[in-house]
């Protein structure tokens, strides 16, 4: 065709993309929000460079001393640190930053080599990779100063190790992207992610457990873990350096060969994924929907089966919202997990702490209120302050339907209250079974405290939900968190509510009259109920004045 010159080469195409990124950044500075984000990114970069260079100095010095003092086998520890940071950082960064999807560039006549090179270059400029490369460079400097003869070998090993990290990281993200493109896999991974976050709470008790039994268990674990660690890439790199330092270059080369094989395998897996992307695969949900779903029956279920629930005492609209909330909770693994995990966690933590005698200083009667405070925080922080997070375009329906907005939020609050009640009952049973049956006074006082704290939370949460909505997606990590105002207000509110409850219970208990806390909490509950009623009354006008912000935020395309 007239006017078409040759398709640009790889270097030119990469140059175009670099210019595109620059233009995207420059244009993002046009509004105040963009400028503020650039400033915060700059501050983050400054902090990050402190970590990078501080870490680099540490790595260099540590390598020098390990080599100089003959503790060569410990070098693998340093390569493991580099590996974990390089691989874990992008996953956490992806959970807070919106990433540039360079697969969008495939509409242009991009060569596969350019596409492949872009993926690797993008990986190379990832902050985690930059930091890791600086650390590896520092290790090489430390190694070369301590043992100048290792300058060449060290360079080869660390370069191959860096390449392996680059290929592995890109390969992992490329495959994750494929899996996360489907709703179901996204939710399964989200489920696992939350389980991992929850399991962090068990690290402390587990470590204390090892402290008590350090003579047996750690050795047992080490005998299993060490051979595995040695066979994995960071272990191979560290041991190749170790055997090189010992002069056994034959064995060091043998280990390096395995490291190379790992790198080649990751490169191949990355190529498989990227060539599928390059050929133009469609990962959208609609493609999954296009496939005919297994049809169980040709018609719809009978009218009776399809009818909504009959919830006595609730109006049409409040009952419908309550039912919708329950259905939504059961349709999202991560959401369901957040709601049902508190009671099992109380069991788990209870066992661990009891074994360690951690409750020595806590009167048994106080275990129930403490457990309830924990449950309250987990459930309500996640579900009260950004009530419309998962509505998406459904918020338009709420605004178009002939219902008062207070009814919508009342339905949502009732759902959270229902979950809180069920969890409270479960926790009472757990505590009675594991520790001691909570006394009537403590049980009633705790429930009264829960009542006042929940009402106060609902009053604050409803207003924040309408004024500072933030769209979230089930099981999607690349998204913004709650609005800053919401996070601050929610944290302060929890600190005040739980703190106040704790003080009242502790004071009345110190006078041996825990029952006195009941009227105090009930008085608080009355004040909170008035506040709740006032806030409900304001919600209709508040929703009306914030309807544009609500729809703009919750209906925006991802």
């Amino acid at each position, binding site marked *: *065709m*007239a*006017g078409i010159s040759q398709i640009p080469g790889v270097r030119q195409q990469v140059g175009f993309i670099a210019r595109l990124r620059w233009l995207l950044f420059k244009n993002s500075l046009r509004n105040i929000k963009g400028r503020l984000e650039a400033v915060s990114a700059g501050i983050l970069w400054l902090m990050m460079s402190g970590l990078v260079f501080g870490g680099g100095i540490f790595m260099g010095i540590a390598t020098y001393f390990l080599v100089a003092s003959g503790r060569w086998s410990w070098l693998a520890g340093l390569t493991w640190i580099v590996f974990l940071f390089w691989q874990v950082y992008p996953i956490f960064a992806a959970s807070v930053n919106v990433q540039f999807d360079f697969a969008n560039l495939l509409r242009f006549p991009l060569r596969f080599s350019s596409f492949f090179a872009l993926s690797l270059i993008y990986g190379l400029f990832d902050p985690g990779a930059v930091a890791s490369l600086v650390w590896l460079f520092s290790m090489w400097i430390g190694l070369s100063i301590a043992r100048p003869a290792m300058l060449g070998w060290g360079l080869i090993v660390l370069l191959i190790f860096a390449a392996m990290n680059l290929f592995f990281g890109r390969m992992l993200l490329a495959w994750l992207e494929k899996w996360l493109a489907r*709703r179901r896999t996204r939710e399964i991974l989200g489920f696992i992610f939350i389980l991992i976050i929850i399991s962090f709470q068990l690290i402390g008790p587990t470590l204390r457990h090892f402290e008590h039994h350090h003579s047996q268990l750690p050795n047992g674990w080490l005998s299993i873990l060490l051979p595995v660690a040695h066979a994995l890439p960071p272990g191979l790199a560290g041991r190749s350096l170790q055997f090189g330092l010992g002069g056994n270059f034959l064995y060091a080369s043998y280990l390096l060969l395995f490291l190379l094989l790992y790198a080649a395998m990751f490169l191949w897996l990355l190529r498989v994924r990227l060539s599928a992307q390059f050929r133009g695969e469609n990962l959208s*949900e*609609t493609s*999954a*929907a*296009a496939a005919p*779903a297994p*049809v*169980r*029956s*040709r*018609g*719809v*279920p*009978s*009218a*009776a089966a*399809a*009818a*909504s629930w*009959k919830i006595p005492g609730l109006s*049409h*609209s409040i*009952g*419908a*919202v309550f*039912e*919708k909330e329950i*259905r*939504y909770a059961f*349709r*999202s693994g991560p959401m369901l997990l957040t709601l049902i995990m508190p009671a099992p966690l109380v069991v788990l933590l209870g066992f661990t702490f009891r074994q360690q005698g951690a409750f020595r200083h806590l009167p048994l009667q106080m275990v129930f209120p403490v457990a309830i405070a924990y449950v309250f925080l987990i459930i309500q922080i996640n579900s009260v302050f950004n009530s419309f997070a*998962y*509505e*998406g*375009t*459904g*918020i*338009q*329906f709420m*605004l*178009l*339907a*002939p*219902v*008062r907005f207070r009814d919508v939020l009342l339905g949502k609050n009732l759902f959270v209250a229902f979950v809180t009640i069920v969890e409270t009952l479960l926790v009472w049973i757990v505590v009675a079974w594991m520790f001691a049956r909570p006394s009537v006074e403590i049980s009633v006082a705790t429930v009264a405290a829960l009542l006042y704290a929940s009402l106060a939370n609902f009053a604050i949460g409803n207003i924040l939900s309408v004024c500072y909505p933030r769209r979230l997606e*089930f099981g999607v990590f690349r998204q913004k968190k709650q609005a800053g105002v919401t996070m601050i207000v929610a944290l302060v509110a929890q600190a005040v509510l739980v703190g106040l409850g704790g003080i009242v219970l502790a004071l009345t208990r110190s006078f041996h009259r825990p029952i006195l806390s009941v009227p105090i909490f009930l008085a608080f509950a009355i004040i909170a109920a008035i506040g709740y009623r006032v806030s409900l009354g304001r919600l209709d006008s508040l929703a*009306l*004045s914030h*309807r*544009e912000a609500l*729809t703009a935020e919750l*209906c925006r395309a991802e």
Partner: protein
Amino acid sequence: MSTEPAIVTEALTRRFGDLVAVDQVNLRVDAGQFFGFLGPNGAGKSTMIKMLTGLLAPSSGSARILGLDLTRHSVEVKASIGVVPEGLALFGRLTGAEYLNFAGRMYGLDRETAAQRTKELLEFMQLADRPKSLITDYSHGMQKKLAMAAAVIHGPKILFLDEPFEGVDAIAAGTLKSMLQRMIARGATIFLTSHVLEIVERLCSHVAIISKGKLVAQGSLEELRAGIEARQGAAASDGKLTLEQIFLDIVGGSRETERELTWLG
């Protein structure tokens, strides 16, 4: 039938900062009309429909729906209208049947009526084959049909549709048109925006055209046609003007293309 117009706006205006998206629009839609609201991209169609359905507050002016002031009687107005907005207003984590039941209940239907209408609507819209599928897994056309079903479940007197045929295949479009014609036959008023002028021409009895926020034409197709023919004289009288010709004439979309983009070949 009531003589009260279905929709009346007086100097309805909406500003976004310096931009006047809808500027002093006086619109009248009589009950029972199939009304097409047309305009080029960015002319103010969606802003107008959002204001008429209560999704957006006007900067000034007023709107009366079925004789009721939209600001003062928003709940009563909402109970009488059905809306398929731009974003479709769906809850992705519900099944089609659950969503329609939910919509019915929110519009005040009792459980049995909501369930019965849900069943009928799913069958009519040919969505009954996948009772267990979540809406998020529906195709775009299926979602559009479901949004339409939810908008009519309570039997609204006025139906507002923002681009109802966009991204919809011929089969789904046929189903939607069939439903709309039933509603018109029953005496309902339909107010739709669309870029597909052929569909508007075939379905609508009356149209209004908005350009750069201002209402530039309003009336039945015959009235608009007659106006242009009177202005252009014999030149236009060779054949019946299509809606596209009317639209381009009013909006001023015709252009000299001979010398443009010659490199395209």
